[in-house]
C-alpha cells in the first residue's frame, strides 16, 4: 500500500518533469513575456470580426434599395437615413426603446443593490445559499422561456385572470402592453445587475463601515457617504450593462409586447427579414449603435475613469 503510493508519487513527478521539459522545449523561456498576449488573441480576433461586420453595416446603410431588383443600388446616398427621419413611427419606436432602457436600468440597479449587499454581508450561510441559488436559477432558463412563462401567468386565460374569474371579478389586460414589457425586462436584467454589483460591495471592507459608525455616522449617513461612493463603480457598471442590454433587446418586447410595443431591435429585424431592406436595417442599426455608444461614453466621461473598477487599485 505504502510502496504503491510512493511509486505512484514518483511516477507523477517523473510525468510532470517530462511535461515541463516538453513545454520548455516548445516554448523557450525568452518567449514567456508574450504568453499573456498570445492568450489574448482569441478575444482580439472575435472583436476584430465584429468590427468587420460593423464596417459592412456602415457600407450597407448608405445604399438605397432598388425596388425593381430588390437589391441595394450601387451609388451612395443618405436615403435610408432620410426615410427614418421622415417616418414618425421610427422616432416613436426609438423614444419608446430609450425610455424603457432608462426605466429598466434605474429600477434594476435600485432593486439589485440591496440584494447584492445582503448577499455579501449576511452572516447566515443559509441566507447566502438561498440568495445565490435564487440569483443563478434564472440563468438556466433562457429569456424566451421566461417570457412565455410570464404569458402563462399574466395572459388572457392565464393564472391571474382565471383566479380573478373564479372570484367573480373582471379580468385584466396584463400583457401586450408597455408596463408588462418593462416588468419582464427588469426581471430578466436583475441577475446581471446583481452579479456586477456583488464584487463592488465585496471590495468594501466591513471595518470601513464599522469605522464610519464609530466616528458618529448612523447607517443612513454611512450608506450615503461611505457605501454608495465606494460601490459606485459597480453601480455604474451595472447601469451601463442593463441599459445597453435593454436598448438592444428583442425577445421581451416581441413576446410580452405582442407587436404592440416594438423596440428598435424589432424594427431592425423587420427591415431585414420582412421588408428585405438591408440598407434600411443597417441604417437603423447604425443609429442604435451611435445612440448607445454616445450614452455609454457620456456616462463613463461623467463618472470618471473609475467606473467598472478598472483603475489602479486603492487599498
Amino acid at each position, binding site marked *: 500500500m505504502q510502496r504503491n503510493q510512493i511509486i505512484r508519487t514518483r511516477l507523477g513527478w517523473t510525468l510532470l518533469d517530462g511535461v515541463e521539459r516538453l513545454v520548455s522545449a516548445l516554448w523557450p523561456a525568452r518567449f514567456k513575456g508574450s504568453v499573456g498576449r498570445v492568450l489574448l488573441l482569441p478575444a482580439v480576433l472575435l472583436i476584430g470580426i465584429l468590427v468587420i461586420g460593423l464596417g459592412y453595416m456602415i457600407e450597407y446603410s448608405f445604399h438605397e434599395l432598388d425596388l425593381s431588383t430588390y437589391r441595394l443600388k450601387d451609388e451612395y446616398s443618405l436615403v435610408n437615413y432620410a426615410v427614418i427621419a421622415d417616418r414618425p413611427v421610427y422616432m416613436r419606436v426609438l423614444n419608446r426603446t430609450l425610455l424603457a432602457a432608462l426605466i429598466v436600468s434605474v429600477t434594476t440597479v435600485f432593486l439589485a443593490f440591496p440584494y447584492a449587499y445582503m448577499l455579501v454581508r449576511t452572516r447566515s450561510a443559509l441566507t447566502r445559499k438561498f440568495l445565490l441559488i435564487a440569483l443563478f436559477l434564472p440563468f438556466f432558463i433562457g429569456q424566451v422561456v421566461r417570457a412565455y412563462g410570464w404569458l402563462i401567468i399574466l395572459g388572457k386565460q392565464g393564472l391571474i385572470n382565471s383566479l380573478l374569474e373564479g372570484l367573480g371579478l373582471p379580468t385584466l389586460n396584463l400583457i401586450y402592453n408597455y408596463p408588462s414589457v418593462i416588468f419582464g425586462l427588469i426581471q430578466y436584467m436583475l441577475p446581471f445587475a446583481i452579479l456586477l454589483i456583488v464584487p463592488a460591495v465585496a471590495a468594501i*471592507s466591513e*471595518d*470601513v463601515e*464599522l*469605522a*464610519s*459608525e*464609530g*466616528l*458618529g*455616522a*448612523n447607517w443612513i*449617513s454611512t450608506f450615503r*457617504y*461611505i457605501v454608495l*461612493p*465606494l460601490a459606485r463603480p459597480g453601480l455604474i457598471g451595472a447601469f451601463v450593462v442593463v441599459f445597453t442590454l435593454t436598448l438592444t433587446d428583442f425577445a421581451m418586447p416581441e413576446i410580452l409586447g405582442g407587436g404592440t410595443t416594438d423596440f428598435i431591435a424589432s424594427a431592425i429585424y423587420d427591415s431585414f427579414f420582412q421588408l428585405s431592406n438591408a440598407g434600411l436595417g443597417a441604417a437603423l442599426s447604425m443609429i442604435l449603435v451611435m445612440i448607445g455608444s454616445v450614452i455609454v461614453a457620456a456616462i463613463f466621461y461623467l463618472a470618471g475613469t473609475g467606473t467598472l473598477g478598472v483603475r*489602479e*487599485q*486603492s*487599498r
Partner: protein
Amino acid sequence: MSRMVEVKDVSKSFDGTLAVNAVNLVLNRGEFLTIVGPSGCGKTTLLRMIAGFEVPSAGEIRINNDRVESIPPYRRSIGMVFQKLALFPHMTAAQNVAYPLKMRRFEPAQIPSLVDKYLQLVQLGDYAGRYPHELSGGQQQRVAIARALSFSPDLLLLDEPLSALDKKLREEMQLEFRRIQQELGVTTINVTHDQREALVMSDRIAVMNEGVVQQDGTPVDMYRNPENRFVANFIGMTSLFEGTVCATGDGVVSVKSGNVLLQARSNDKVLPVNTRVDCAIRAEQIRIVEDASVYDNSVFGTIEHRIFEGDRIVYTVHVEDLGGARLHLFDHDPVSHKEYPANERVRLGWNARDLFAFQAPQSN
C-alpha cells in the same frame, strides 16, 4: 481621579462559548491601559463591547458614568483605530479627519481649523490632500489616529493597529502614539498580543487569557510581581519548572524540584508544606557563575543552544537535577566577550527573590 470607564462583570458568549468571562476593569481619566493576551483570549471582543460593536451577554459598561450597553457606537464618544485602519479610500487625509466632525455636527466653520490642528499633531500637515493609497504605512497610521481624535472623544480605543507594521516602524509608532496620548491626555485602551508594546506604552496593563483578566497593574508591577504562572510566562522570557514546597518562611519558601532544594519567593501567599508549585524565573535573573556562594540558588547544567542576538546571547541550559528542565538565560559581558560553547557544563546561580513559586492548578 475620576473614573472614565468601568467594566463590571461583563461576559460575552458566542453560540454557547464564553469569549469574555465576568471581566472587571476600571480606567481613570487620562490613563493608558493595554489589554494584552494571546489571540483568542477575548481582548478584542472586550474592546468591541466597549466600542459598541458587540452587546455584552451580561454585565455593565459605564463610560463617563453612563451605562452604554444599549447605546449604538455612533452615539458614544469613542474614537477607534482599527487593526486594518479602515481609512476611507475615497477621501483625502483631510476628508478622513473631517468625517467624524461632519457626522457629529460640529460647526462647519470650525472644521477646517480642527482638521489642520490634528493633522499637525500627527505631523501630516503637508499631506492633507493625499489619498490613503498615496501614503506610506506609517502615514496611514497617523491619519487613522488623527481621525479617531479630531472630535475630542472621551475615550480612544486601539485595536492592534500596529501589528501589521515592521519592527522598526512599530517601535517608532508606539512612542508616537504615547506622545500624542500624553499631549492630549485622552483616556486610552489599547489591545495587543505584543508584551513589549504593552510594557512600553501603558500606564497600566491587564493580562487576559481564556476570557478572564489574569492580572491588572502597572508595567513594573506586572513584570516584577506576576500573580500567576500565566502572567509570569506571558511577560518577559521566562523558564518554568515544577516543584513541591518543603518548608515555608516569611515570604520565602523552600521548594524541592528534581533533586535540588531551592529558595523561592511565595509572593505573599501562604503555601503550605507539600503544595505542588510552578516555579518561574526570568532569563535575565540567571547568571553563569564560577562562585555560587553569592547566590541563594545554584545548579549545574549543560548548554544546549546558544543564540547570538548581537546585544546579548541567549543560552538554553539543560538542567538534569531540576527534573530535566530547560532554563533560558541572557548573558553578555561587554568587557571580556566571553562565550560558552554548546555542551559545556556550567554553573548557574540566582537569588530567591527572583524565583517565583505559584500554586499549581488543582486539577493537576
